């Protein structure tokens, strides 16, 4: 009994330690975002201080407001996610189920686009967008984001589709359902968890992307990840404001994560159980 209790306590302690290490930067940002500049620099770091919403007011409604950047980020991330999912679900299904010539090659090709280091393709992307006049436009950035979100989404979804027993589909066909109807009514509901996971990851990647955004964006379309850097000026780092923007930029992802959590957990366990069963 005591050995068991010890194990529980040890597990708890280790979990807490990891949780703390993981949560520390976030807590730190939240705390600093509520401080004045002089409190941010105070030593020893103040845990108790008079909170101020000044940094938030500044970054939201001040002269360097990030509201337009948040809008940019939303348009880009939501656009990327919707288009990716519309294309990735059928593509993943096809790769998992259909037999067609060049299937293996197509699968590999989709993956190959993921193998290039992003830095290497920035200049070609810049030139392409420049030539078609899509620099600093939503369609331009979304198009480029699709080039890496799509392969990622397809490969993530393929594994979920492969996990569905073929018998389920056969049953639907026997009952006279068409392939499209089967996909819509039988298959997709089964991979809901997988789709939720994919949506979160695609949205997260698009939301947090910086490397391409900084090169391909401009004054009109500028996501929050790029705008955030303007609080690190050559003269000084505006810690409180930087923290406030970070917290604001974190929020949508956190909310999406919480909303999708139920489905994600389900999605993850579906995969796990199936994998275990196969063995």
């Amino acid at each position, binding site marked *: 009994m005591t050995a068991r209790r010890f194990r529980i306590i040890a597990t708890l302690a280790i979990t807490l330690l990891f949780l703390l290490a993981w949560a520390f930067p976030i807590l730190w940002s939240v705390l600093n975002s509520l401080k004045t*500049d002089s409190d941010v620099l105070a*030593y020893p770091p103040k845990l108790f201080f008079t*909170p101020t919403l000044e940094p938030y007011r500044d970054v939201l*409604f001040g002269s360097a*407001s990030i509201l337009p950047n948040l809008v940019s980020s939303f348009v880009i991330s939501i656009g990327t996610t919707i288009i990716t999912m519309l294309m990735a679900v059928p593509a993943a299904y096809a790769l998992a189920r259909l037999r067609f010539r060049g299937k293996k090659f197509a699968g590999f090709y989709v993956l190959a686009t993921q193998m290039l280091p992003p830095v290497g393709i920035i*200049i070609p992307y810049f030139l392409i967008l*420049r030539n078609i006049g899509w620099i600093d436009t939503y369609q331009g950035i979304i198009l480029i984001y699709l080039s890496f979100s799509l392969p990622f989404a397809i490969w993530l979804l393929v594994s979920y589709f492969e996990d569905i027993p073929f018998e389920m589909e056969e049953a639907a066909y026997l009952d006279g359902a068409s392939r499209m109807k089967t996909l819509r009514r039988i298959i997709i509901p089964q991979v809901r968890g997988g789709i939720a996971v994919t949506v979160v990851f695609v949205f997260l990647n698009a939301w947090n992307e910086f490397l391409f955004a900084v090169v391909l964006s401009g004054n009109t379309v500028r996501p929050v990840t790029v705008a955030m850097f303007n609080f*690190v000026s*050559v003269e*000084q780092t505006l810690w409180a404001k930087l923290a406030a923007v970070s917290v604001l930029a974190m929020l949508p992802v956190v909310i999406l994560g919480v909303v999708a959590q139920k489905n994600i957990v389900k999605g993850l366990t579906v995969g796990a159980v199936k994998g275990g069963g196969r063995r």
Partner: protein
Amino acid sequence: MKSFAPTRRTFLKAGTAATALLGLAPSVMRQAAAQEADLAPYKSAKIDWQQASGETITIAVIPASYFENLISLAPQFKALTGIDVRFEKIPPAQIRQKSVIDLTSKTGTYATHAADPMYYSLYAANKWVEPLDSYLADKSLTDADWFKFDDIIPAWRAADSVDGKQYGVPYDGEVTIQVYRKDLYDAKGLKPADDLETFVKNAAALNAPNDRIWGTALRGVAGAGQNMYIYPSIFREFGGQWFKGGKLTVNGPEAEAALAWYIDVMRKYAPTAAANWNWPDIADAFSQGTVASYIDAHSSASVINNPEKSKVIGKVGYARWPKGPTGKRVSSIWNWGFPINAAQTDKKKKATWLFIQWAASAETQARTAHRFAGPAKRSGVNRSSIWKDPDYVKLMNGFGDNFVEATMATLQSDTDVDWRPRVPQWPAIGDTMATAIQSALSGQATIKAALDDAQRRVEPMMRG
């Protein structure tokens, strides 16, 4: 905390209202500024300011108060020339990347950009930017008597030229000086250091980590513009020469002595974390009273005098770079200048030049500095004449003892355009050296091994 509990509705309302206001505010302000602007001082120049009217040019700058001031005057430029200017603010690390991509691909996105002086060799070697001599000499484009190009601080002008040809016009600049805590120095009877030896002695005398005061701090983080901003001055003061018999040399006895001095100071008298510090971190620490002295850009004076967070206002003094064992002072200089992107139509190039002439003119420099209406005052004004203007001098001396004298003396006597090797391969060389310095500082390699390794890496770069 309780005050921040908006319902969804009030939040949306506030957001919508704010967005609407934001949309309106700039246009209202722009109109007001344009109406108030007195353009007579510009119109006394004997050129046709309207010759490129109707053009639109995009200019990349970095987020900094001195560019914010300029951006707020853009409506005056539009009223004067009929040229529309769009500014794009890009952080310092990315502006190099973006402008090089723009220049290599010859897309002409940015008519001009805030350029790193160390990049001009690269730009010029590839003919990406225009030589400016013809623009300066063209009487239809430049009124030499009005523009007074020679009034711009010579050290910064030289930094923006390659082989005697001008490629950029400095807008705002910096020079590296010694900054110290007057009160702490006085208490111990210390004087600001005149040579590196005294600098170390002063740091040792004030170093008391248990009381949270460290003797000094120098840029420690690895980077061509970070530890390789401070090290080259030390290297040159110890007698180092970048080119020995035409060959780029970064190792040898002088280099070893210089690096040893830097590492000794950083290990013994600087906070441990300073190995990862950049200039804002040094200024932040100094402003909190934990560092007794530092050597860095004179422009950091505005940070350590920021009443909102500094605890050392009124306790600061300034002095020139301490002399090295050779008796030489080698300060580092920096400026953000404007080149003309060569991949543009002739009319756009003219519009760009008119913008550069306007931004670098004595009138605009004054309007963005001591005569600027807002709170941020520039300490990097490009004109020798303004540095003698009593109004400006008074404003600048508000930063502390000896500020203007130290800055001016350094700019006049202690700078050296070759404080870093000015070659097209600089960006790669700078990064290689930065890594070598850091590995020696962290003890991963001995000083000699780090420098010899850097030499081995640098040589093929110079051949290629």
